[in-house]
């Protein structure tokens, strides 16, 4: 019983039992409603007025029953959605995508989502890359734990910072910031485990505390990294071992804690602050503990009356990786700004900097982008990126990207 995971499960069960007890209350309440309604029946004037007004309102649309039928037929199917992420590399010198491709269907992401029962919902995202299908996320989320608690069970993107929780095709930029690619992996940090969280306002504003116990990171992100690496590494040895190996080959448990705070500064603006800490054991020359620390800040502005036409985002994150024992600490960071020009036009810029693990020196870079949304379901984006390593040649790339979303894709967390 000293096993931390066991503790987690016990907490879950206890919480579920509490919910069970609470669930009895509404039924009792409903009985009393009937009594209340019966008392109301004596107020004949309510009935009379209501009958007259309802007559005036007119019968519900004849189509209404058809809708009810449609809802009952489809409501038992989970929501199925698809996002297609297509890239065209327009770089002047040579192609910079994996395997030197100029055209790349980077990913087809299939989302299958829905409520399991009154107690759980389930969300699964399958990423199809070429001929490989990968479970990007697949987790159950509790819906009925008491005391503002929630648990997730399965495989998920880890709440390390803010950007890491976003699927790549839905990022405001066309790929993850350099610091994330170096320290968290090309597609972000995800793992399989248990995620417990609590929301509340002990300081008067929203706070969410998350604790995750998960497996060490599998090597898939690393392998995928190699494709790009071979290509980039050809001429430039200093580019060398590019990220992706955060907690690689790690058999032992990973612990992560994240504290998110959100403060409404005005009806138009909001400030979000996050602190993250992840720790796990790695086997390198010697067995030791690696710690990752993260800080994230996001400021958003969107005037309520003109929300469709104007908005701005300023965002920054910093990540530190402390090696085991006397090993050095490496750092990375990014800053991002986006401005909405018009209803369907956005421009953005990102500044990147990172000290890649196991490489000398640092890499600086940045991205400029223009986004056009014909509707909220399709996007065309042009991005220019530069990566300039301290030791080695700079990489320039110009990428055109389209994303298309089909189906009732669930909205994204704020």
């Amino acid at each position, binding site marked *: 019983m*000293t*096993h*931390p995971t066991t503790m987690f499960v016990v907490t879950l069960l206890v919480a579920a039992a509490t919910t069970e007890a609470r*669930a009895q209350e*509404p039924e009792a*309440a*409903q009985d009393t*409603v009937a*009594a*209340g*309604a019966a*008392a*109301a029946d004596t*107020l004949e*004037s*309510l009935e009379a*007025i*209501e009958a007259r*007004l309802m007559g*005036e*309102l007119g019968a*519900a*649309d004849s*189509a*209404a029953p*058809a809708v009810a039928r449609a809802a009952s037929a489809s409501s038992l199917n989970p929501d199925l959605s698809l996002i297609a992420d297509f890239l065209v590399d327009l770089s002047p010198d040579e192609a910079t995508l994996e395997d030197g491709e100029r055209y790349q269907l980077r990913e087809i992401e299939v989302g299958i989502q829905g409520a399991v029962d*009154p107690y759980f919902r389930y969300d699964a995202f399958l990423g199809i890359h070429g001929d490989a299908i990968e479970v990007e996320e697949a987790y159950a*989320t509790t*819906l009925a*734990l*008491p*005391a*503002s*608690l*929630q648990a997730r069970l399965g495989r998920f993107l880890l709440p390390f910072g803010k950007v890491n929780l976003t699927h790549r095709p839905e990022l405001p930029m066309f790929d993850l910031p350099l610091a994330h690619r170096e320290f968290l992996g090309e597609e972000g940090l995800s793992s399989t485990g248990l995620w417990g969280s*609590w929301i*509340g*306002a*002990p300081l008067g504003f*929203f706070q969410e*505390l998350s*604790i995750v116990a998960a497996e060490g990171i599998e090597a898939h992100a690393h392998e995928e990294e190699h494709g790009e690496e071979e290509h980039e590494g050809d001429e430039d040895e200093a580019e060398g071992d590019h990220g992706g190996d955060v907690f690689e080959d790690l058999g032992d*448990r990973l*612990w992560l*804690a994240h504290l998110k705070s*959100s403060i*409404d500064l005005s009806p138009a603006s909001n400030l979000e602050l996050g602190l993250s800490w992840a720790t796990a054991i790695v086997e390198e020359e010697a067995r030791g503990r690696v710690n990752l620390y993260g800080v994230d800040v996001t400021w*958003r502005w969107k005037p*309520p*009356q003109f*929300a*469709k036409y104007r908005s701005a985002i300023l965002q920054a994150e910093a990540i530190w990786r402390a090696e085991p024992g006397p090993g050095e600490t490496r750092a990375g960071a990014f800053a991002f700004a986006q401005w909405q020009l018009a*209803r*369907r036009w956005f421009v953005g810029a990102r500044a990147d900097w990172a000290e890649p693990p196991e490489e000398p020196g640092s890499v600086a870079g940045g991205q400029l982008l223009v986004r056009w949304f014909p*509707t909220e379901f399709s996007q065309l984006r042009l991005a220019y990126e530069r990566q300039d390593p301290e030791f080695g040649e700079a990489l320039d790339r110009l990428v055109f990207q389209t994303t298309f979303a089909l189906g*009732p894709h*669930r*909205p994204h*967390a*704020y």
Partner: protein
Amino acid sequence: MIRTHRLCLSALARALPALVAGAWIVASAPVPAAAQERIPVVATLPVLAELVEAVGGDRVAVTAIATPLQDPHFVEARPSYILAASRARVFVTAGMDLEVGWEPLVREGSRNAAIQVGAPGYVDASAHVRKLGVPTGRIDRSRGDVHPHGNPHYWLDPLNAVPLTADIALALSRVDPANAGVYNDRRRRFLAELEERMAGWRARLAPLSGSPVASYHESWEYLASRFGLEIVGTLEPKPGIPPSPSHLAGLMDRMRARGVRLILKEPYYENDNPALVARETGARVVELPNQPQPGQDYFAFVDGLVERLAAAGAAGTSR
């Protein structure tokens, strides 16, 4: 085996401060309101909050999520809304997929079992209203941002307040059965006043009955159908798609042919295209908020709409 065991213990030891902190925060979380306190209600839209207020009076403490000048389609699921929903005992949503971009995040993110779909505290306000524009046949997004359940701006038909308040009163009575009589009585008074005001609104808008009008978005169908206005076209070529020059040219031809004098638009839409159409066709732009403004109850809100329409109509015909 021993190594693994020790490792887990050490992991637990390291995680202990966080667990203790978590337990402390949970213990210090606010306790549910006592029975004699006001019922905390969260409504997605100000108009729903006003209707809850009308039925609940001083028995409820109602919070609206969207602000009065916000487009209800484009609200962001701020964490503070999630927090408000986590404390609510009744949650009222407009439904019909109007708030599909944010309501599920707020409601499910609240971790509040009492307000989830099917729970006693959950109210889909559209459940029994008279619906317009329910699409028939096959629909897909090539038709723009269509709502499969019909046009969701149903609160703009004042008579839809009858089924709306019925569902609100029912939910309040489920959650607070001791005061069911109070809710029913307050609703009776509300409906009696609605009937009285309805006669006044009809009289005020009688001169506009049968008038052709244009609108920016398909959001004024309910008001138009109740008071006999005819909407001949929208500035948006399809719901949610911004106006294009070719579409506006076609619309202006139609407006001239039909003698359209009024263009209805919400304050949250841009002014350039409506002003252009007004200039070219001689029509007048009427800004109509589709939510009660601060300090307005439901009746004052409809009064405001009727007054603006009637005044614009009178000015339009006297030209």
